[in-house]
């Protein structure tokens, strides 16, 4: 079976899929990829099911060696990538041969990059999914020496590219009322949406801290609220009124009050915001939220049709380099006629 052997890996890499719905009552949140749109993009590029597992890489990638021929795709936060030293295009699918080395560097924007294999990563499922859930103690972070075995890959198409939606620099987050919104006074809610936030230093797959100037955003009776169900996207205020936007690997219940819930379609933007990225919240109604989510899901379904062939595929780039066209390229300073005259 083909696969990738991990030679080097960053500290926050793990196998992820769409997660495990249905275990809320047992205390396990759905979890899965922090940026599920990236999973869908990878699946579109490889012409396969978005439910297949990929490697999620937080902040930085690693180095991988192919144990056999396989297809890969790179999505999510754009990272520098090269195959045997030759630069690879991000948000595209590529072919690898046995023994070839793939290196993935630091994110140029955003946080979570994804490495997909044709056929998906075939780790042993636990409780119905392959997603590592660190909070639940299901699986562990990827380590050097691990083998990422690919599942059966019936397809052979590679060399496709997709224009990714830019969700890597923060921006506006649409938020709707939830069952605890009324615990926050009107002026606190107004101040909340009027505040410029930036992503704080405390952030992981469970949630992301939002920091701002000025006082916090406390609810009435904040410390004595009955613990209640938590949903991904909930904006929870800690005891001192600091907001955290909870992500898919959040706890399932909690007692700190939630001022509202960020739309699922805006959560990749939260997960992908680098420390310091600017963000604002905007209240919207339920109908507008449902419409926005429906449009987003429609766009997901259109991803396979949006894939285009790479103008220069991998083989062509290698040929170009072997002909040393770069060193022969015209420079802005050089006199284009000088070399010709001396010949």
């Amino acid at each position, binding site marked *: 079976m083909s696969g990738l052997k991990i030679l080097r890996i960053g500290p926050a890499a793990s196998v992820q899929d769409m997660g495990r719905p249905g275990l809320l009552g047992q205390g396990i949140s759905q979890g899965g990829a922090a940026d599920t749109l990236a999973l869908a993009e990878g699946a579109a590029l490889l012409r396969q099911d978005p439910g297949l597992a990929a490697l999620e890489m937080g902040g930085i990638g690693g180095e991988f060696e192919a144990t056999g021929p396989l297809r890969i795709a790179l999505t999510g936060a754009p990272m520098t990538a090269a195959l045997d030293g030759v630069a690879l295009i991000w948000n595209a699918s590529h072919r690898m041969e046995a023994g070839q080395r793939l290196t993935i560097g630091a994110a140029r924007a955003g946080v979570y990059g994804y490495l997909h294999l044709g056929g998906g990563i075939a780790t042993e499922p636990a409780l119905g999914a392959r997603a590592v859930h660190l909070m639940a103690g299901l699986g562990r972070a990827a380590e050097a020496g691990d083998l990422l075995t690919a599942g059966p890959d019936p397809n052979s198409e590679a060399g496709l590219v997709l224009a990714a939606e830019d969700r890597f620099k923060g921006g506006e987050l649409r938020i709707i009322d939830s*069952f605890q919104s*009324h615990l926050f006074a009107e002026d606190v809610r107004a101040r909340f949406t009027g505040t410029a936030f930036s992503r704080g230093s405390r952030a992981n797959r469970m949630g992301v801290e939002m920091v701002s100037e000025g006082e916090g955003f406390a609810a009435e009776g904040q410390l004595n609220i009955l613990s209640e169900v938590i949903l991904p996207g909930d904006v929870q205020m800690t005891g001192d009124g600091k907001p955290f936007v909870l992500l898919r690997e959040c706890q*399932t219940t909690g007692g700190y009050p939630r001022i509202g819930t960020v739309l699922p379609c805006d959560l990749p933007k939260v997960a992908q915001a680098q420390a310091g990225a600017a963000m604002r919240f905007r209240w919207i109604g339920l109908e507008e939220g449902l419409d926005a989510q429906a449009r987003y899901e429609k766009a997901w379904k259109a991803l396979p049709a949006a894939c285009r062939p790479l103008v220069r595929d991998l083989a062509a780039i290698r040929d170009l380099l072997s002909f040393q066209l770069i060193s022969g390229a015209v420079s802005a300073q050089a006199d284009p006629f000088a070399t010709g005259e001396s010949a």
Partner: protein
Amino acid sequence: MDSQDTAAYPLVRRAGLSGILVSFGGSLNEASNRAALAYRTAVETLKLEGVVETMASLASVFVRFEPSLLPHEKLEAELQELLVAQDWLQAPLPAGRRFWRVPTVYGTDLAPQLAEAADAAGMSEAQAIDSLGAARVRVLTIGFAPGQPYLGSLGQEWDLPRQTELTPMVPRGALVQAICQFVLFSNPAPTGWRHVGQTGFTLFQAGADQPFALRPGDEMQFEPVSKPEFLKLCEDDPMHGGAAAEEIGA
């Protein structure tokens, strides 16, 4: 919207884009917890198309659904109809419940916030251990982390607020206390509750036939033992730290 505070329970409210929360009370109460457990079972039995999953929390039932298959208004009508079908506050507890006795070290370096909690409750440490160790509590809900129980109710003297600052990390098996309840931790985690006791009880094993040790409705007592006794029990029984269970008769 402020009327939600004073309106008569049960309350049917929206939660996020695709959730409904049915609440039987706004504070911890034995009957509203029983109502939540029974109502959740009844919602599951309806097998409504478009319902993705349900859970019972302390006094509420959460229903996650797909609004394109099941519009909000339609689900809300179904849930209202079920609410009036019987008096849920009188519903019996689930069948097949068990009583767990769990050896527990209170205080020491293993549970360093006992003194602080005792102080807040107006007791000496010895009084706090007697009070907490004698309490027979029920699994009110499973949540926060895999298989992790919220346990109650403790007496009003234990109605202590959460801390304003989080305790950065408590270990697996930690018994923490706030607002008339215990939580027993299934994994190391930060918490706003006070770490009063330590057990060797494993709540969740991913690979096991029965991954989750507890079910809502089970009862527990955290019986005080000395630190040396506790360490010996954990050595002899690494999975449950000497805990024992018996069936509760109907």
